[in-house]
């Protein structure tokens, strides 16, 4: 009997829903949960918390209470409702700016890495030029010159994060171009179009996905900064940045106005950084990044 059970135990039990070891990444999962929570807040937050973010229907400068969990602002608007609206604004601006950078950066990086030569020279010099400015300063100047609106903030942020996108995509394309399968498919007579979409693009999706998450956090942080400086979303529309700017005048009397919007920014930025870090571990261990130097042993 004993030998039988020993043998029986020696065979591992079949487990259902086995998560591959590399997907068990606590930082990435924490990031995904935070990001999912914020997206959910933006999508259905105002269905659950039905206060109007633009209606002054309470006393001004109230502290947190059951009726107003995050308090009220300087003209009696509900801060929680405004933070929920701010989540929508942040994600929308962040998504648009990141989409601009994703498309423009991938196209530019692909052209430079695929055609090399003069095209590469041209694209690389333009990228270098953007890198010659501190990113935030460039965003401030572009948004300031174009005029302080939501659309212009998206354009300004899109431009400054296109450059790092293009640079990384170019490097990745150059690496893929060195592999023999590119040469063989060309030798077989594949067109540029086919080589790019069938062979190069599928091989550079990993760094692109990682970059998207990391620069999403940068885009949101930049939007908050621009709105804080009065160059992004304009009051009375609620954005986390301009809520903090208003709160400055009430820093002595109503600290809640400063605490909640800032915490919201920090949480979403932390979430996307964590997510990007986890995705990098899983998809693309070669690329270093923002949180890499901080979280790795």
């Amino acid at each position, binding site marked *: 009997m004993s030998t039988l059970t020993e043998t029986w135990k020696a065979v591992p039990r079949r487990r259902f829903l086995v998560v591959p070891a590399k997907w068990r990444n606590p930082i990435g999962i924490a990031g995904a949960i935070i990001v999912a929570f914020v997206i959910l807040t933006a999508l259905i937050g105002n269905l659950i918390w039905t206060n109007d973010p633009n209606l002054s229907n309470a006393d001004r400068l109230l502290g947190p209470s059951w009726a107003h969990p995050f308090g009220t602002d300087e003209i009696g608007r509900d801060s929680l409702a405004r933070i929920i609206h701010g989540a929508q604004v942040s994600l929308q601006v962040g998504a648009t700016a990141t989409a601009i950078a994703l498309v423009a950066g991938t196209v530019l990086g692909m052209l430079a890495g695929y055609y090399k030569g003069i095209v590469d020279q041209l694209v690389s010099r333009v990228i270098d030029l953007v890198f*010659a400015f501190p990113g935030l300063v460039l965003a*401030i100047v572009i948004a300031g*010159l174009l005029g302080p609106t939501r659309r212009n903030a998206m354009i300004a942020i899109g431009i400054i994060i296109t450059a790092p996108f293009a640079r990384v995509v170019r490097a990745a394309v150059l690496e893929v171009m060195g592999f023999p399968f590119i040469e063989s498919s060309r030798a077989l007579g594949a067109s540029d179009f086919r080589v790019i979409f069938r062979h190069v693009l599928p091989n550079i999706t990993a760094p692109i996905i990682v970059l998207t998450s990391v620069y999403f956090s940068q885009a949101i942080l930049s939007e908050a900064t621009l709105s804080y400086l009065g*160059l992004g979303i304009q009051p009375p529309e609620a954005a986390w940045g301009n809520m903090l700017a208003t709160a400055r005048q009430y820093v*002595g009397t109503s600290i809640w106005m400063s605490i909640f919007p800032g915490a919201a920014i*920090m949480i979403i930025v932390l979430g996307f*950084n964590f997510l990007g870090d986890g995705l990098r571990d899983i998809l693309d261990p070669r690329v270093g990044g923002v949180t890499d130097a*901080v979280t790795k042993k």
Partner: protein
Amino acid sequence: MTTFLIRRLIAMIATLFAVSVTIFLMVRLMTGDIISIIFFGDEAATDEQKDLVRKQLGIDGSYFHQYTHWAGRILFHGDFGNSFQTGQPISEILGHSIHITAELIVLGIVIALLFAIPLGVISAVKRDSAADYGARLTGLIGISIPGFWLATLLIIFTSQVFNWLPPLLYVSITTDPWKNFTQFVFPALSISVFTLAIVMRMLRATMLEVLNLDYVRTARAKGVPRRTVLIKHALRNALIPVVTVAGFEVGYLIAGAAVVETIFNLPGVGFNLLHAISQRDYPLIEATTLLIAAVFVIVNTLVDLVYGLLDPRISVAD
């Protein structure tokens, strides 16, 4: 090394030229018709008045003429033109503001290194201890917290706990060093946190690497005191890559400074840039942006050169 030096300097000058052209074009192409913005609603304005404003703004004649005129005056006379709003020479405005930004950045980098070096060393030496986890958590928060919010939190903290607010009007370091320090320490602290986090983690990684090298073990084995080995043998070598990272961070501190100067009402270069933007003072926007970008480019080139000096492989490979 000489070819490396010359190549880097030529690249720097080319970049500065390209940057100045970019700023010049941005101000002209992104704003729409400056004249109609300025004279908006002013029906009585004559063409002579408009031409005069064009001349004051440096937007008369062809772009080539405008650019050479603008860049030539800056290059050969140090003359950035006059502020459109106040008529004050811009070189004077910059002269009054550049040391404020410089003080902020120097203080920021000093604070960052002052905390980052001990934290990085402790974190590496006492690996996986409570102190290590604390330091790493600080690093994680440091890269995600918005600088301008941290500044607000600091003000809330001191006003609630000590019932004290930083002075609202700028005090120069020569008139009252202490008051000047209390005014600069918060903005400097809030821009330094990101750099602190990056440098600390970098140092932790390099220290861990160096501590495992043979010569450190040899030094310990022959009886050199632990503290001496840590500081003289390990830290010195671990600091080389950290120096270059800290150098590049100076560039990013300039961007951070632009934001906190506005919050803390410090009339530095960034403060003037944002003020110029809100006032539509185009010559001042051009000048402040050019100054910030030029310092950024020059600092990055210097860091590159220092790195080449410290690590000969870089300059040879180039």
